[in-house]
């Protein structure tokens, strides 16, 4: 009896395995072409997920108005990863078991993306992250792409701001304590520490969600910092600026591109004035393609898109353009097409290098009178 049962079980398992194979190979040619969007839709970072989904949907709508791609309608399938690695791992399994899906836009945090990436890569599903900036993310595999700046290049721009524009030398770094934050903090410390015209006076790691940065600030102030770089989102930068300027109004606060959000000004108020950061996308641009996206987005969302949302919009554009140029959804050739493509998007000309990183052009922005404006307009350069 036991033998029969075990034989039966073996049979069931092997059939289910085979059927799994069959379904991944065959994909219908007339149904909609699906792209998965995996971001936090609930939880602490839900605002980002919702904004990226909207940006992606705007791009998809544009394509569908023009007849879709390869004669097929494009459809987004949204998943909620709650910005957690555990959730992302199971979502990745779900996505790769759906043969209709050609690629994934996601995930939000670098750490979460890096948990899911091996699954996508193994199953030849293209993953494009519009947010991950961890240096190791894109080298996980051939199918893993990054349409965001690598963090080290952003620090290069900040270095330039400090040395050439502001002529400040004593720099402090405050980084959030996450996988991404500590890695980025290390890179910042390395870059600023090795620049002969800059002195790194302190590097402090803070827990996001504790909201009190006075202890780190007192240390940096004591060390004589002239500029402080906040390695984190607007949620770090706004209170950091506020608390630092309360004890030292002269401090120059500098952020990264992911601080580019309206909430920075809302939360920071007066203290947000003068914050400088590099961005790959500027919503106030006069470019008609940018205007069109910004207007549609603002109407739906109620506030202007961030650089990351613009990158989500462009990422979908690149993927669909690659499908169009490739002429089929064959995963291997699609990957090669995507790697060779040069895409003129609203975040500049995007081209992936051999490990799947897009290089970005930066604009320096500064907060002035409650608005984001180009730094060059203020400094007269």
């Amino acid at each position, binding site marked *: 009896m036991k033998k029969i049962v075990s034989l039966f079980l073996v049979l069931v398992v092997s059939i289910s395995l085979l059927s799994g194979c069959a379904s991944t190979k065959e994909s219908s040619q007339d149904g909609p072409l699906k792209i998965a969007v995996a971001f936090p839709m609930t939880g602490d970072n839900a605002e980002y997920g919702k904004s990226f989904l909207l940006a992606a949907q705007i791009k998809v709508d544009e394509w569908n108005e023009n007849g879709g791609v390869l004669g097929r309608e494009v459809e987004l399938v949204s998943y909620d990863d709650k910005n957690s690695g555990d959730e992302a791992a199971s979502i990745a399994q779900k996505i790769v078991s759906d043969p209709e899906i050609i690629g994934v836009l996601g995930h939000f945090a670098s750490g979460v993306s890096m948990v899911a990436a091996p699954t996508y890569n193994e199953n030849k599903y293209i993953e494009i992250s519009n947010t991950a900036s961890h240096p190791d993310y894109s080298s996980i595999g051939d199918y893993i792409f990054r349409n965001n700046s690598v963090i080290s290049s952003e620090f290069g721009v900040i270095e330039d701001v400090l040395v050439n524009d502001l002529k400040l030398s004593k720099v402090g770094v405050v980084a959030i304590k996450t996988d991404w934050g500590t890695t980025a903090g290390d890179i910042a410390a390395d870059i600023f520490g090795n620049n002969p015209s800059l002195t790194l006076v302190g*590097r402090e790691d803070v827990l996001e*969600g504790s909201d*009190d940065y006075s*202890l780190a600030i007192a*240390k940096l102030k004591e060390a004589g910092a002239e500029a402080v770089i906040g390695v984190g989102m607007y949620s770090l930068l706004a209170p950091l600026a506020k608390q630092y300027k*309360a004890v030292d109004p002269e401090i120059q606060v500098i952020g990264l591109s992911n601080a580019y959000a309206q909430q920075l000004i809302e939360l920071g108020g007066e203290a947000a004035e003068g914050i400088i950061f590099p961005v790959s996308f500027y919503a106030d641009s006069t470019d008609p393609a940018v205007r069109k996206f910004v207007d549609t987005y603002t109407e739906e969302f109620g506030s202007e898109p961030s650089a990351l949302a613009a990158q989500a919009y462009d990422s979908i554009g690149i993927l669909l353009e690659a499908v169009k140029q490739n002429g089929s959804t064959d995963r291997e050739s699609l990957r090669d097409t995507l790697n060779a493509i040069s895409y003129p998007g609203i975040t500049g000309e995007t081209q992936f290098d051999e490990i799947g990183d897009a290089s970005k052009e930066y604009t320096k922005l500064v907060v002035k009178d409650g608005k984001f404006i180009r730094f060059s307009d203020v400094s007269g350069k």
Partner: protein
Amino acid sequence: MILQQAFNGLALGMAYALIAVGYSLVFGILRLVNFSHGSVYAFGAHMVILFVSYHFGLAPAIILGVVLTGLLGILIDKMALSPLRKKNSPGISSLITTIGISYIIQNLLMMAFGSEKKTFPELFPSKMITIAGAQVSSMQIVMFIASVILLLVLTLLVKFTKIGLAMRSVEQSEKIASLMGINTNFIIAFTFFLGGASAAIASILISGYYQIVYPTMGFVVGLKAFAAAVLGGIGLFHGSIVGGLVIGVAEAIAASLFGSAYRDSVAFIILILVLVIRPAGLFGKKGIEKV
């Protein structure tokens, strides 16, 4: 520098102490660790920004916020904890239930207000005051005074009023208290109301200082405040205040000596040390169970 960090630590500790008082209050009367306190704290601040956005004015918004948060405390008790008490469930079920409630409140707040960080209005224009070379914000001083007042009011209430007497008798034995003609349901509801209201007062003061509000704002501070309450001897108000201050100052010292990276583990290292050496907390007496 040391003095500055000590002041920063005291201000931080005051924030923990304010929240810790709420843990102690409910524990002192009901012997229940109420882990929903952190979320109730976040609820209070959200109610205030809600009323402020409807142009109620800051003072009425604060009063409404405190009262509503107190009512939320009663609601939590009536919906989830009171049925458990009636069935004589073990204490652990109530504790787990409060964790569940904490998540429910947090997620409801996210659905209603979104998860992004919102600004909290400044309670009054804050100024920096220099004391012996260290800078202190006037808001920090107000926080300090407010928590001392809160402590005094709660202590007087529990020790010297009729309702306080009833609360203490419920603590000793709910059954016998009800036999003595005390409306125990009312007393328990009142305790939860006070717990909720104290959470709201804490969140208004702390949000007024940091000017930042979001649904998960009570998580990290809530845990540290719990550590503070246990450190001082849970159930004792003055223990909570001292516990909060000890943790705040310890964090400040750790941050300046070893770097901010070590700051957040310090609260819990101290907690473990104290529990090993004095299991009942700094001020706690060994419990004598009267039978």
